[in-house]
């Protein structure tokens, strides 16, 4: 069975998830994975669905758009390569946090250091609202550090970069957060 990825982005309001799910149901699709988030007032959802055998991508795409009546929601539909199973490279999950004043280019600067080390960002949350409250000016990266990467060098480079940006940066194995917060 082939798979399709659908992303929907737009102004948040009640009923978006229901509308997408209704159309998918009507077209005989099965939702395998879905993740949604709301940033300020904007909704973003990403769906991986399996479609019935023999479904033509172009036809499916047209049928979906016809049946989907939500105004102001941008929908992107793409077929998904399913031949190769997803294999996470071996490594360990670390959490990088930065706390400090907002300025232009912070995400660019930090994520570039991470990318140059060949490390993948698994999850990223960033909030910049100004003021002194640390909870309002933070970046949190969850990264998968492959075994081949020297995390001491990565940690050192990140801390140097953060210092130049007046940010306090921590680089810690994810287990410590799980251990402290989850029973």
């Amino acid at each position, binding site marked *: 069975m082939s798979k399709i990825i659908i992303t929907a982005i737009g102004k948040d309001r009640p009923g978006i998830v229901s509308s997408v799910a209704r159309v998918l149901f009507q077209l005989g699709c099965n939702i395998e994975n879905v993740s949604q988030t709301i940033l300020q007032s904007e909704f973003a959802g990403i769906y991986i669905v399996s479609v019935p055998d023999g479904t033509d991508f172009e036809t499916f795409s047209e049928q979906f758009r016809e049946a989907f009546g939500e105004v102001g929601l941008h929908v992107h539909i793409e077929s998904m390569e399913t031949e190769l199973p997803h294999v996470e490279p071996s490594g360990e999950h670390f*959490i990088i946090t930065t706390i400090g004043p907002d300025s232009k280019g912070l995400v660019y600067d930090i994520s570039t250091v991470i990318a140059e080390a060949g490390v993948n960002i698994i999850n990223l949350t960033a909030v910049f609202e100004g003021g002194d409250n640390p909870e309002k000016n933070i970046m949190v990266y969850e990264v998968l550090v492959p075994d081949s990467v020297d995390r*001491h060098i990565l940690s050192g480079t990140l801390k140097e970069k953060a210092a130049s940006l007046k940010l306090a940066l921590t680089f810690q*194995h994810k287990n410590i957060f799980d251990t402290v917060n989850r029973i």
Partner: protein
Amino acid sequence: MLSESELISTVEMLKYEHLDVRTVTLGINLFDCASHDLEVFKANLHKKITRLAGPLVETCNTIGDKYGIEVVNKRISISPIGVVAAPFNSAQMVEIAKTLNDIAVEVGVDFIGGFSALVEKGIANGDRALIEAIPEALTQTDRICASVNVGSTRAGINMDAILLMANAIKRGAALTADKDGLAVAKLCVFCNIPQDVPFMAGAYLGTGEADAVINVGVSGPGVVKRAIDRAVESGSSLGLGDIAEVIKRTACKVTRVGELIGREVAQALDIPFGVVDLSLAPTPTVGDSVGEIFQSMGLTSIGHPGSTAALAMLNDAVKKGGAFASSHVGGLSGAFIPVSEDLNIEEACRNGSLNIEKLEAMTCVCSVGLDMVAIPGATSEETIAGIIADEMAIGMINNKTTACRLIPVPGKAAGDNAHFGGLLGHATIIDVKNCEGQNGFVRHGGRIPAPIHSLKN
């Protein structure tokens, strides 16, 4: 994914509230090193301790770095030397202490604890030689800690041993008069000493323990204080039950950190994991104080009326939270109130809010005892013996650990200042009622019988 508040609270605990792993202590059984030949014994000690502890410091640093949490001290606890080195005399005991000190330097640990004797019921030859050697041994070394257990709920209190210890304390202080009696800041006298304490000066490895074991001491008074402050600042009206709940939850988180680090160090060294000692151990650093927790709970100062009740609640809440967080909790596990090591408690002694009698009362409900208390250098042996006997009696009757770490500071009087340095801090010398003439009670010697275990009132 963890929530932002979970992430931030954890980062704050570690980075700004002084949460650290106070010590990873490697316990090493030394009974298989025993020999009647001193040179052979010393060689055996060196061989076994360096083999097991060689990678300890580096392993702790690597794992601490991985989790972004500092392992402040790396230590070793050993089988009681009074037993392991029983054939030797006191001069040879001093040699053993110096050998252990050299080994501590070689493997890079901060302290080796276990220059110890267990004499609650009687004093064997090795114990007597060890106690005799303590003043000289602690003067000639800087990384060795000594402890002597002089009482227990099962055996009673050995007053002969207390008198010997009072004498040893006076001699040790005199030998290090130029350092305000520093030698005896590394000496604890215990009742009901636990076999698995990772904290100094009381750490030793009990005879019922494995060949080698990793015990961990976590700390975090600053984290508890901030948690109470946040709860109070939130504006909701808090009962004491609510504050106890905040302490309990916080202690649980703190203990989980210790358990994680301890297990990982143990795994890396291929040594069994023993216990987490979840004590609130202060350091002489702003924001790392047990005394400040009393103020967060609403008292004007530790030592003022209400302090014993507050400490009882704090100590119990810490134990409850910790016991839930780890399946193996041991050691002392509670709140420490070492005077010189806690800026706030030291200040309370200096300004008269806290005196030795109130400290003694508070030790009935805390986890250790009269800890790091600087007393006038002129305090007599009888008085020191009396103070120790009182403290041991509290432990014996209440079936709990109590200890004394008293420093009679040579040439100094009540109100003067004593400096010990580093984590040992500094203290204003506290006034004590010095016995004039003979204290016949302690000079009787012998043993105070073990208490009855029924008719509890």
